[in-house]
C-alpha cells in the first residue's frame, strides 16, 4: 500500500468563503476498520467536492463517516472545528444529510416520501407549491399523490434527491446521485445542485465513478485508492 501525502489545491473562488480555516471537515489520523486509512484530509465548506476511486476503495465509507453513520476506529474527524465524536449524531445528521446510492423509498405516496425527512426532523411540512417546485427541480413529473411503488428506479432516485433538497441541510452527501439517470437529466440535476451549493454557501460532497462529471462540476477532487485518500485540484 502506498501512503499518499495529500496535496490540496482547491479551485477556490476568492472572497467566496467566509468560514474559518477550521471550518468544513478535517480528518486527522483517521482509520476505519480495514477500509480507510487517512492520515490527513480536509473538505472545505461552500464548495463541491467529488470522491473518486475504484469500487471497494472506501468512498461510501468516507461518506458515512462524514454523516456519523459510521465512526472512525481511531483518529479524529472535526466538523466546523468541533470534534465529531462530541456532536450528537441525530443533530449532526440533520445538518449533514446523506443520500445513499440506492435510496430506500418508503411505503406511501410521492408526497409521503418527499416529506419523510421533514417529519423525522419534526419540521413544518411545506405547501403544495413548494413540493411541486422541488419535484420540478429534480425533474419528477409524477403527481404528488401517486403511489411511490409505481416509480421507476430513476424516478425513485430523483424522489430521494427531492427529499433531501427539502431538508435544506448545510451539507449534502450524495453517493452516486447520477447513477440511475440518463445523461441529460443527470447534468441538469447536478448543475442545479452545484448552483444551490455555491449560491447558498452549502457544501456538496459527492461520490462518483465518472471522472468527467467530477472534473466538470467539482472544486475539489479526492482520490481514494485502497483506503487512502488524496486531494487534488479539479479540472
Amino acid at each position, binding site marked *: 500500500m502506498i501512503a499518499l501525502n495529500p496535496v490540496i489545491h482547491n479551485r477556490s473562488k476568492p472572497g467566496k468563503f467566509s468560514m474559518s480555516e477550521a471550518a468544513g471537515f478535517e480528518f486527522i489520523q483517521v482509520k476505519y476498520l480495514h477500509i480507510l486509512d487517512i492520515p490527513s484530509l480536509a473538505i472545505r465548506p461552500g464548495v463541491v467536492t467529488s470522491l473518486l476511486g475504484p469500487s471497494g476503495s472506501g468512498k461510501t465509507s468516507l461518506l458515512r463517516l462524514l454523516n*456519523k453513520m459510521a*465512526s472512525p476506529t481511531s483518529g479524529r474527524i472535526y466538523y466546523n472545528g468541533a470534534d465529531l465524536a462530541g456532536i450528537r449524531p*441525530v443533530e449532526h*445528521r440533520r445538518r449533514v444529510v446523506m443520500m*445513499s446510492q440506492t435510496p*430506500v423509498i*418508503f411505503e406511501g405516496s410521492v408526497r409521503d416520501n418527499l416529506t419523510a425527512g421533514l417529519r*423525522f426532523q419534526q419540521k413544518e411540512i411545506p405547501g403544495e407549491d413548494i413540493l411541486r417546485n422541488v419535484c420540478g427541480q429534480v425533474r419528477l413529473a409524477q403527481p404528488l399523490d401517486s403511489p411511490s411503488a409505481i416509480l421507476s428506479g430513476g424516478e425513485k432516485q430523483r424522489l430521494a434527491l427531492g427529499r433531501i433538497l427539502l431538508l435544506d441541510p448545510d451539507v449534502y452527501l450524495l453517493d452516486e446521485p447520477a447513477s440511475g439517470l440518463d445523461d441529460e437529466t443527470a447534468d441538469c440535476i447536478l448543475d442545479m445542485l452545484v448552483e444551490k451549493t455555491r449560491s447558498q454557501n452549502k457544501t456538496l460532497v459527492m461520490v462518483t465513478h465518472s471522472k468527467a462529471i467530477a472534473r466538470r462540476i467539482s472544486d475539489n477532487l479526492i482520490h481514494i485508492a485502497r483506503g487512502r485518500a488524496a486531494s487534488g485540484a479539479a479540472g
Partner: protein
Amino acid sequence: MNGIIDLGFYQVAAAYIFVIIVLAIIRHRGISREKEIVIASFRMTLQLVLVGYILVYVFDNPNPFITAAIVIVMEAFAIYTIFSKFRGGLSTGLKKVIALATGAGTVLCLLFFLFVIVRVNPWYNPQYFIPIAGMLIGNSMTAVSLAVKSLTDGMTTRKQMVEEALVLGATPQMATRDILNSTFDSAIMPTINSMIGMGIVFLPGMMTGQILAGAAPTTAIAYQIAIMLGILGAVALTVIFTLQMGYRTFFNKEDQLVGETGIKNL
C-alpha cells in the same frame, strides 16, 4: 353443585390411548415425530406429577419465602425458555432486556391482581399466588417470544429502511417505529383472539378446571374474566417493556445500527 369425580390411575392411564393413536397416525403417514411426542408426553406427566406433590406440600405449609421462590423459579424458567428459542442469536443486551421486561411486567400485574382485585389473605397465599403467577408468566413468555422474533426479523429485513430514516435525521425510535408497532400487534394478537373466542369457541382451562372442581359457573366466570384481563395487561406490559428497551440494543451510543442484523456483537 356435585362434587368432583376423582380420576383413578387406570382412568388417567386410559387417556394415553390418544398418544398411541397419534403415534400410529404419524407413523402411517411417515412423519418422523414419534420421539418428540413420546418425550413431550413423558415430560408433561412427570412435571405435573412432581408439581402436584410440591403444591400439596406448599398449600399445606404456606410460607412467604417458598411462595416467592416458586415464582422466581417460574420467572427464571420462562426467561430461559425465551432465550432457548433463539439459541446463539440474541445479543447480551437484548437478553438483559427480555429478563428485565418479563420480570417487571409480570410481577407488576401479579401484585395488582392479587392485592387489588382478589385481595388475598395472607398476601403470600400459595393457592392463589402460584396458579395466577403461572398464567400471567406463561402467557407473557409466549408473547415476549413472539415479540422478540418479530423484532429481530423486522430489524433484519427492514434494516435498509431503518438506515434510510437515520440518514434523514430520524432518531432510532422514529426509525424503528413501524417495526415496533407491527411487532406489538403480532405479539398481542393471540391474546386478543383468545378473548374474542372465549366462551363461544372454547371454554378456557381455568374456568373449566374450577367448574370441574365444583365451583359455581358464575364464580368461575368472574375469575376467568379477571384473569383474562390480567393476562392482557401482563402481555401488553411485558411486550411494551421489551420493545421500548429492546430496540435500543440494535443501536450503539452513536445511534448507528450494530452488526449485520443488529442482534449480535453488542
